[in-house]
């Protein structure tokens, strides 16, 4: 037996070649261009960027290597490009379109002269000439555990992952055995990142001790929360890390089957994971007798069909079994009786992505990050009205204020902060007074919000809280599976009342009804969808009651957002003669010329899209919004009589 190589020995054979290749890449002979090419990069036009580089390089006859990488999380700066020119540190450039790519080739890549400071974000390594990314608050305050390699390695290259220490945790786990792994995860106190925060180690232990076999592990990548996309990014940018975590989970619970449940709306994540599975299988890191041990794991991908409720584990199991995704009563918990009655462990993508680093570096290292009750980091997709939207990974326990104002640069255009919505449809809206709340499962729940899957939408004073509550209830109402009466019908009534309010209809009784109906829906629902659906209503009622009152008492939307309660008008004093900017942009031709050759809006035709506000040149800034609509001042507008004008001429 002793002649058989250990998993570590087998792995190091694979790693050696990968490291050599990686080293060569760190000291390149020809320029290397890394282009962020995950979904958000593509949305910002990274394909055009790549084509731009290729064309320009071919034209000039320059030899360079183009490598596509995943997402760094800096969505505001996409498309992101890193250029490693021999003799320079790797330099990262932001918002590189096809045109900028051409400029970079001509002025930098051609002779290595001008590194184009105008597009430069920073250098990846400390150096004497260029500012580094660590000089930015975004990098300084972030603590990257899960997203450590995202955007730096090629997700389609197993070698890249191996070279940065990939699959070493799996080899270690295989040598130490299942019991050790479970104990290590338990002692690290890793809490499930899917939203509920249940300790992963305990879940694993329950499944490990279950008698029935075979056992199943499922990676939950059914990210249905509108406004959260970190699971997608992890699967697209570092798929092997997810697979490694999944294999370690399988080893820990003794599973022989693994399923990755990924939303069908994420085609790139599906194909990236499928490629990664094939590569890992080919190198004996998945499949039969992994790294020469007894662990065999059959891995498959199941595409979720877009039902929000399938993020709930029992509903997810139902959908794999070919049923409508309706949650089931627990217990029995899936860890005891899950898919086809077999012990099933379901972990979120982020949870599994954390596992390899804990196994590699030990639970003590992990516990040193974050808070005592919730060690580790949290990933948020911070979007909305912040200066630097994107994915942010911070240690648990930092305050919301720190995250929004220091890490993400505060509110865009210097506008005032109004509220932050955390946890998607299950979460709540927190006002300025709650900004000192530390970010962890328990504190956020206490404040009335929820960690959820980590969606965070920051809103300025132009967002109406009643409308936000209506939006989320509309979503949960649509996504309710219909099993529980309160969730099915209760949310419908909530939606009707809220829709009325956004039109200025309602009464004091309706507000009272919102409160009681919300509380009853929480009690009367089986799964978290119904139990948390009223959170957006309850928190907005608690923190922004004045806004509710203004809607039905004064028919006024204080944020000037609810379209039934606002109107646009053009101030004739500010409007410039002969300027037609707003006329061209109006989708309903509601803007006409007045008798003094200025512009006015026909309120009957206006659909209140707000396009004219943007079209009006800033030097005039003549379009204004008012609420209620009757507030439009009487300017004595008369339309221009064109016939008369013609006669005059």
């Amino acid at each position, binding site marked *: 037996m002793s002649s058989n190589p250990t998993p570590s020995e087998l792995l190091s054979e694979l790693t050696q070649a990968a490291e050599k290749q990686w080293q060569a890449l760190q000291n390149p002979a020809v320029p290397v261009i890394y282009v962020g090419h995950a979904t958000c990069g593509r949305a910002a036009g990274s394909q055009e960027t790549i084509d731009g580089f290729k064309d320009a390089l071919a034209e000039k006859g320059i030899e360079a290597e183009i490598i596509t990488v995943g997402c760094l999380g800096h*969505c505001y700066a996409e498309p992101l490009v890193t250029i490693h020119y021999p003799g320079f540190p790797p330099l990262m450039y932001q918002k590189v379109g096809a045109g900028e790519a051409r400029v970079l080739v001509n002025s930098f890549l051609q002779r290595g002269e001008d590194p184009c400071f105008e597009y430069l974000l920073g250098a990846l390594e400390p150096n004497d000439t260029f500012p580094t990314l660590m000089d930015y608050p975004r990098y300084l305050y972030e603590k990257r555990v899960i997203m450590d390699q995202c955007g730096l390695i090629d997700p389609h290259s197993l070698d890249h992952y191996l070279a940065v220490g990939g699959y070493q945790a799996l080899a270690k786990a295989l040598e130490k055995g299942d019991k050790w792994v479970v104990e290590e995860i338990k002692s690290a106190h890793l809490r499930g990142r899917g939203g509920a925060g249940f300790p992963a180690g305990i879940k694993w232990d329950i499944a490990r001790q279950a008698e029935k076999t075979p056992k199943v592990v499922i990676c939950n990548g059914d990210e249905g929360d509108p406004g959260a*996309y970190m699971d997608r990014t992890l699967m697209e940018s570092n798929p092997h890390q997810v697979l490694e975590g999944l294999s370690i989970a399988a080893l820990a619970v003794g599973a022989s089957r693994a399923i990755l449940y990924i939303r069908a709306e994420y085609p790139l994540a599906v194909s990236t994971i499928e490629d990664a599975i094939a590569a890992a299988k080919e190198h004996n890191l998945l499949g039969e007798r992994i790294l020469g041990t007894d662990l065999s794991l059959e891995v498959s991908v199941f595409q979720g069909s877009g*039902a*929000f409720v399938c993020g709930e584990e029992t509903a997810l199991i139902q959908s794999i079994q070919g049923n409508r995704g309706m949650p089931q009563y627990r217990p029995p918990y899936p860890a005891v009786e899950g898919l086809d009655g077999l012990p099933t462990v379901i972990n979120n993508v982020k949870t599994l992505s954390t596992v390899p680093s804990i196994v590699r570096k030990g639970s003590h290292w992990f516990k040193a990050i974050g808070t005592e009750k919730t060690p580790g980091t949290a990933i948020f997709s911070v979007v909305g009205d912040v200066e630097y939207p994107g994915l942010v990974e911070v240690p648990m326990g930092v305050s919301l204020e720190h995250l929004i104002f220091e890490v993400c640069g505060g509110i865009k255009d210097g506008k005032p902060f109004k509220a932050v919505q955390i946890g998607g449809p299950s979460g709540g809206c927190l006002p300025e007074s709650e900004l000192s709340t530390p970010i962890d499962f328990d504190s956020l729940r206490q404040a009335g919000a929820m960690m959820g899957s980590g969606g965070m939408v920051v809103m300025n004073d132009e967002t109406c809280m009643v409308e936000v509550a209506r939006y989320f209830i509309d979503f949960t109402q649509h996504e309710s599976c219909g099993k529980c009466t309160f969730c099915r019908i209760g949310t419908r009534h909530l939606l009707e009342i809220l829709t009325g309010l956004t039109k200025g209809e309602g009464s004091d009784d309706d507000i009272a009804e919102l409160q009681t109906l919300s509380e009853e829906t929480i009690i009367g629902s089986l799964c978290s969808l119904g139990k948390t659906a009223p959170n957006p209503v309850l928190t907005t009622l608690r923190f922004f009651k004045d806004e509710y009152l203004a809607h039905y008492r004064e028919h006024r939307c204080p944020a000037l957002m609810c379209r039934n309660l606002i109107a646009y008008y053009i101030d004739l004093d500010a409007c410039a003669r002969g300027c037609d900017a707003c006329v061209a942009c109006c*989708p309903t031709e509601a803007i006409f010329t007045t008798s003094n050759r200025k512009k006015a809006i026909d309120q009957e035709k206006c*659909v209140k899209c707000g*396009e004219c506000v943007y079209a009006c040149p800033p030097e005039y800034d003549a379009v204004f919004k008012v609420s209620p609509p009757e507030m439009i001042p009487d300017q004595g507008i008369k339309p221009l009589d064109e016939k008369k004008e013609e006669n005059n001429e």
Partner: protein
Amino acid sequence: MVDNLEQDQEIDLEEERVLDAIAAELPGISRDVHQLIPVLQKIQHIHGYLPLGSIGMVAAHFGIPGAKVFGVATFYNQFRFNPPGRHPIKVCLGTACHVKGGEIILENFTRRLGIEEGETTKDREYSLERVACVGCCALAPVVVVGEKIESYVTPSKVEGVITEIEIQNEIAEREKAKDEQQSDSE
């Protein structure tokens, strides 16, 4: 009216072809009911939609009631029962897109194309859908046209997106006409 009738007949013929294709494919697939959703996904992936006739065929394949297949297919947002347009337009109404006016964008498409969400234009050029979130929240509001993601969409950009498709179509038509002329002269 005559036009509509012809179009409808064309759709019927097309649906027949789709059903024939499905009938040919089904026997090769496992009868394990765990495969129900993957099979429905496959049909939609190949043909773009689930013709109502296919529900019964899938039910027969798995030996389960048609109502169960229909129940599953209608439960999930992914499945559609009418053919999509050549340029499917998906308007994202995730939280970030909503806050930045996604609804207004949807309305503009509705007005411009003359169809409601979930519908396809008569000429089968466009179909309009709303989606919960495509995960490009930092670029909100977002619209997916075919495979391409359009970011920071405004009502004027809606006009631009449609105009661009119209121009592309016209170019293609002219090229075609030119080719035909050339081959005629030869």
